[in-house]
């Protein structure tokens, strides 16, 4: 399939998913008194889902290229867990200072907290990279950071259970959801997602060459250290943006690049725009599905992506193995 046709098909998928998402929910758009409010709320929400899906998918493309491992996801660097923890700390802080912080736009506490969390995790990673860490050390550092941040996050969540409302918010945050995203969140994450996506596209040729291994890449003139450092930075920016919009949303960054490679090929400059579009469409559809499924309240986005993503990923793995072994 040509790149133009594929991109048109993916844009169409985004539009279809977007229209479905606008019409999905407990309240009907047929009610004229609610229509404007519903369109505003659902519009911001679908934009948030699109941006989070795009950011996570482009981040997935980048880390899978950097680590030469199709099983890598953006969370591998620990910046996702850092962003999650940043959001949790921000929630706790906002709760403790609720009286004093009335003047502060409370809805912005979470995205700012998650971005700070992602940047702190990134700072720790960069310290290791500056010390000359190789990819394995980077991988292990990311794993250890993730474990550490998740443990601290779980501790904070258990502490927050003393207040029912706060505890519920913390759990909802860790499950992942764009239900609370508004226009400000979208405006906050939009430049981060656009700049991060363009930057990863810009490093695309270097990432292509890095797939031959760092030694071969260096022999072909790639500045391996700079590529490693900057790709890590932009993945952190993208995951920070995604988490600030939707909390912990699993599997998107893993399966979207996987699903696209057989169609688009392995070239990063072709993968990045396609991944942004497919990731965005996928998360919009998952969010709409979470609202459409029967239940007392909607199903958190992170649960929907997990329920769809895990079996889909297994199917993709089986298909890849069949193709590899001609079965």
């Amino acid at each position, binding site marked *: 399939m040509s790149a133009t046709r594929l991109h048109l098909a993916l844009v169409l998928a985004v539009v279809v998913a977007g229209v479905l998402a606008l019409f999905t929910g407990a309240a009907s758009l047929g009610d004229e008194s609610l229509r404007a409010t519903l369109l505003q709320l659902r519009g911001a929400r679908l934009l948030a889902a699109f941006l989070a899906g795009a950011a996570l998918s482009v981040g997935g493309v980048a880390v899978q290229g950097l680590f030469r491992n199709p099983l890598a996801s953006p969370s591998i660097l620990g910046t996702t867990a850092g962003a999650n923890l940043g959001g949790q700390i921000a929630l706790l802080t906002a709760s403790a200072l609720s009286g004093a912080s009335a003047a502060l736009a409370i809805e912005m506490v979470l995205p700012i907290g998650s971005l700070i969390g992602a940047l702190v995790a990134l700072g720790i990673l960069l310290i290791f990279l500056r010390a000359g860490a190789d990819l394995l050390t980077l991988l292990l550092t990311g794993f250890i950071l993730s474990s550490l941040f998740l443990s601290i996050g779980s501790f904070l969540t258990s502490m927050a259970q003393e207040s029912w409302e706060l505890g519920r918010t913390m759990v909802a945050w860790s499950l992942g959801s764009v239900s609370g995203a508004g226009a400000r969140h979208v405006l906050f994450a939009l430049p981060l997602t656009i700049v991060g996506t363009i930057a990863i596209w810009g490093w695309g040729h*270097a990432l292509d060459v890095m797939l*031959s291994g760092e030694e*071969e890449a260096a022999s*072909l003139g790639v500045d391996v250290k700079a590529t490693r450092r900057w790709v890590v930075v932009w993945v952190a920016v993208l995951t920070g943006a995604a988490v600030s919009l939707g909390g912990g949303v699993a599997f998107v960054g893993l399966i979207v690049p996987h699903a696209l490679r057989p169609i688009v090929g*392995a070239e990063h400059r072709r993968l990045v725009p396609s991944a942004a579009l497919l990731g965005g469409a996928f998360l919009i559809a998952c969010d709409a599905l979470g609202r459409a499924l029967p239940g007392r309240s909607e199903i958190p986005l992170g649960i929907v992506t997990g329920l769809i993503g895990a079996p889909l990923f297994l199917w993709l793995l089986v298909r890849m193995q069949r193709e590899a072994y001609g079965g």
Partner: protein
Amino acid sequence: MGDTAILTEGVQVTLGARPVLRDISFQARYGAITALLGPNGAGKTTLLKAVAGLLPHEGRIEVAGEDLHRLHRADRVRLLAYVPQESLLASPFRVEHVVRQARYSLRTDRQSHHAAVEHAMEVVDVAHLRKRSFTQLSGGERRRVLLARALATEAKLILLDEPTASLDIRHALSFYDLLKELAASGYCIVAVLHRLDDAARFTERAILLKDGRLLHQGTTADVISAEPIRDVYGVEMEEATVLSFRLR
């Protein structure tokens, strides 16, 4: 450009705290194939990587008269190309995309890039594979594609690490013929080789390493002779026992 492609003086490479190469001085010239020989662990691959600028070294390495320490990445790519024993590339890139990667750091116009890539694929006879996925190629085809990528840099010094390892005899002979053609057209080929009979047949000059030291260098006929072989490998060379093959 002079006749000397590589000139090393007192090169030392230390990995961790362990000295791997000590006081290596040799020359390799354009228009010839030079074999890097020696037993396992002698430091052949390390020397090749040091000359390729992939390992930090002490001492002096000159490539085409330029000090390797002072060369910028892109200038190094213009002067030398390195082909490892096994590429880690396992992505389904099209062959032409793999060859085009040679031009990553070279800043010229699109036409020059295109011409260099096309020429390299023609010379190595992989142009007909251009749309095929690299991962679907045979071992011999992959070797040729990686050589095409090296040639597409337009560097006249090609460093090869065991270029015929894992190739069957037909592909190996065909690969050596190609290297001889390249050397005849002015390239300097430096190849780590394991098989002495291959070195004796296809290379003009040889360097014999043992335990990180250069013990013998000169014409291949001089280096692969009774005394150096006994000295380095600890075996006796017998006359007329080398198997020989040729392409039909």
